[in-house]
């Protein structure tokens, strides 16, 4: 609770006590107590109302409350004046508490900001602002501290809590040589880290910028509702005026009664519940997504996602892991282990991604090796334990006078010879992400009708990966510009009330992210362009977050609609009752703050999980 809220709570309690005592007192004592209670709980409302009149801003809810209670006093309904003001303030307090809570769920994302950084310079520990960290600095991170900049561990091991940064709940064990992201909390060890980025370029700074801009894109429904309120308020005020004047003047009805009805009418009509319920539904959706490590840039994103029927994927780095690994091994002679050993010995000094995949597959190969020659586009020839060896593509084999086998294995093929004999083939390829197919099936069940895969890769491998994850539509050999053109075609073929989403890793697809109705970047804080271009960012490189995001979007869009319907119906019914004289003031207040409060609760109903 903020100080303001606490003060209001105290005032409500005090006013309630005075009210309760006064209730049992006779005559003017009672009146005195009621007026006192009214003033205690409502003085700020009265003051604000008076000020607003002077500024020409009438007909906000404070003005209406002041008017309604003053009228009650004028009619010597002391208890009603006090009760109405009390009820109104209780509603206001609840409303502000609920809003505060929702605000905190979003801003919780913000407390990844490291407070200080400890930099080691010439063996001395210097405490500085994280913003002063430069590339190459050695940083000391003790248990309980946040890592101030992205970097590599030089010394030490620890468990890291990365939940706030990636949405991954399990602590991650790290040791020397591993990369760590800023914003993670060191749970137990002492780490020395070499900074690989300055603070402004670090993951933390990117996420913070992202969250800062989160509420900028307002939902369509939100805009419509604001516009609606723009016409609605004067219309209701006009109706109230007619209600107060016509019956007494034209039909000779008692003026006091119809004035009271008109006032009730006005209190009911406050548009706050309507205006707040819609953005709050989306806002709570953004909070729910944030808990899963998904940053959504605004209500409109959830709204668009809820009506997305076509999902377009980038292949490399999105459906696949984007890193090479050994996929299959075929031995012509000897064992698999021997084949891998020879290949790894040949390739161990190469920094080609294919070579690195092979080295990674064979840990610490044994043998005396002398590299003879590494030639780009061919492979490596070497001498292992005094005998000649070679690992490379078909061209290298041909040049050595060996005919490699025909193969249809997916990926890049590395053929291996040792001591003049052909040993076999290793196929190295990118790997489909874990659960990619299942994720797509879930999305299909959630109402996505069309999946398209785009890739710069060749036709064969596109076909292979598309089939692997159950996508029937794909386009291969696309240059970045082709992707944009093709995407524009999909967009123009889309039905008016449907949206197209694009999922990419943001490396070279920023233009497509921008063009899409909903651009989703995966693990996108790695690239500044993606953060700018995307509408939603999955902080963690995890496809399985997509169904979660879609579920949240659908749920919250539905809730926003429910809230509008609920507020309109309750208000409509109460307005009619009020005009007919059946609505007491407390019902009118319920129709105002009560409805707002229930709409808020509804918005948060689903975000508990």
């Amino acid at each position, binding site marked *: 609770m903020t100080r303001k809220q606490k003060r209001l709570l105290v005032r409500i309690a005090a006013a309630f006590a005075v009210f309760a005592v006064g209730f049992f007192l006779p005559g003017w004592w009672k009146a005195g107590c009621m007026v006192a209670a009214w003033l205690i709980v409502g003085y700020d409302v009265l003051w604000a109302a008076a000020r607003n009149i002077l500024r020409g801003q009438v007909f906000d809810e404070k003005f209406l409350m002041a008017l309604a209670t003053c009228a009650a006093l004028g009619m010597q309904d002391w208890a009603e004046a006090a009760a109405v003001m009390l009820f109104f303030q209780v509603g206001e307090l609840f409303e502000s508490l609920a809003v505060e809570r929702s605000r905190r769920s979003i801003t919780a994302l913000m407390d990844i900001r490291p407070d200080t950084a400890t930099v080691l310079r010439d063996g001395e520990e210097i405490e500085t602002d994280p913003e002063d960290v430069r590339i190459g600095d050695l940083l000391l991170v003790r248990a309980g501290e946040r890592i101030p900049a992205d970097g590599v561990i030089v010394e030490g091991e620890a468990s890291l809590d990365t939940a706030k940064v990636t949405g991954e709940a399990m602590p991650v064990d790290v040791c020397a040589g591993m990369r760590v992201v800023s914003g993670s909390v060191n749970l137990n060890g002492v780490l020395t880290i070499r900074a690989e980025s300055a603070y402004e370029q670090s993951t933390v700074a990117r996420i913070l910028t992202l969250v800062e801009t989160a509420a900028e894109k*307002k939902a369509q429904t939100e805009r419509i509702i604001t516009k609606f309120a723009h016409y609605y308020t004067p219309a209701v005020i006009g109706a109230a005026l007619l209600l107060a004047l016509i019956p007494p003047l034209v039909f000779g009805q008692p003026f006091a009664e119809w004035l009271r009805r008109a006032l009730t009418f006005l209190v009911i009509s406050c548009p706050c519940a309507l205006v707040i319920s819609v953005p709050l539904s989306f806002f709570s959706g953004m909070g729910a997504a944030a808990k899963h490590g998904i940053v959504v840039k605004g209500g409109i994103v959830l709204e668009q996602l809820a009506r997305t029927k076509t999902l377009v994927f980038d292949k490399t780095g999105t459906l696949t892991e984007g890193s090479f690994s050994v996929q299959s091994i075929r031995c012509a002679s000897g064992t698999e282990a021997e084949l891998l050993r020879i290949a790894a010995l040949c390739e161990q000094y190469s920094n080609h991604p294919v070579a690195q995949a092979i080295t990674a597959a064979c840990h610490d190969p044994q043998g005396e090796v002398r590299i003879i020659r590494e030639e780009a586009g061919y492979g490596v020839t070497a001498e292992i334990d005094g005998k000649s060896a070679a690992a490379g593509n078909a061209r290298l084999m041909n040049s050595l006078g060996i005919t490699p086998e025909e193969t249809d294995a997916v990926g890049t093929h590395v053929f291996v010879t040792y001591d003049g004999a052909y040993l076999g083939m290793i196929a190295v390829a990118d790997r489909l992400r874990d659960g990619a197919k299942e994720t797509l099936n879930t999305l299909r069940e959630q109402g996505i009708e069309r999946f398209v895969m785009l890739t710069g890769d060749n036709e064969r491998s596109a076909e292979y990966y598309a089939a692997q994850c159950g996508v029937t539509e794909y386009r291969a050999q696309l240059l970045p510009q082709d992707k944009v053109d093709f995407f524009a075609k999909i967009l123009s073929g889309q039905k008016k009330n449907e949206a197209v989403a694009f999922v990419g890793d943001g490396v070279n697809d920023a233009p497509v992210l921008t063009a899409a109705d909903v651009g989703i970047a995966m693990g996108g804080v790695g690239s500044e362009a993606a953060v700018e271009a995307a509408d939603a960012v999955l902080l963690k490189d995890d496809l399985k977050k997509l169904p979660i995001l879609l579920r949240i979007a659908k749920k919250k869009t539905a809730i926003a609609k429910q809230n509008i319907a609920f507020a309109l119906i309750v208000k409509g019914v109460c307005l009619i009752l009020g005009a007919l004289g059946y609505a007491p003031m407390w019902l009118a207040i319920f129709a105002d703050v009560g409805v707002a409060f229930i709409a808020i609760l509804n918005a948060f109903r689903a975000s508990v999980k």
Partner: protein
Amino acid sequence: MKKTYRLRDLDCANCAAKMENAINKLPEVESATVSFLMQKMTVNYAEGVDDAAALAVIKKVIHKVEPDCEVLA
């Protein structure tokens, strides 16, 4: 030029909407959003506008709608 300001004591959602409308009508402003939930205002100033002077105008508009609301840098 886009600038973001924090707002203090912005107490009602409808007031935020009113402010947003009023600020968007200013000639100095290209577009603006007032977020009640984030208690924040983002202003896209029109080209060649002195933002300090424009902010003073915006503050006046805000005060007219909600006198208690303060603009923080």
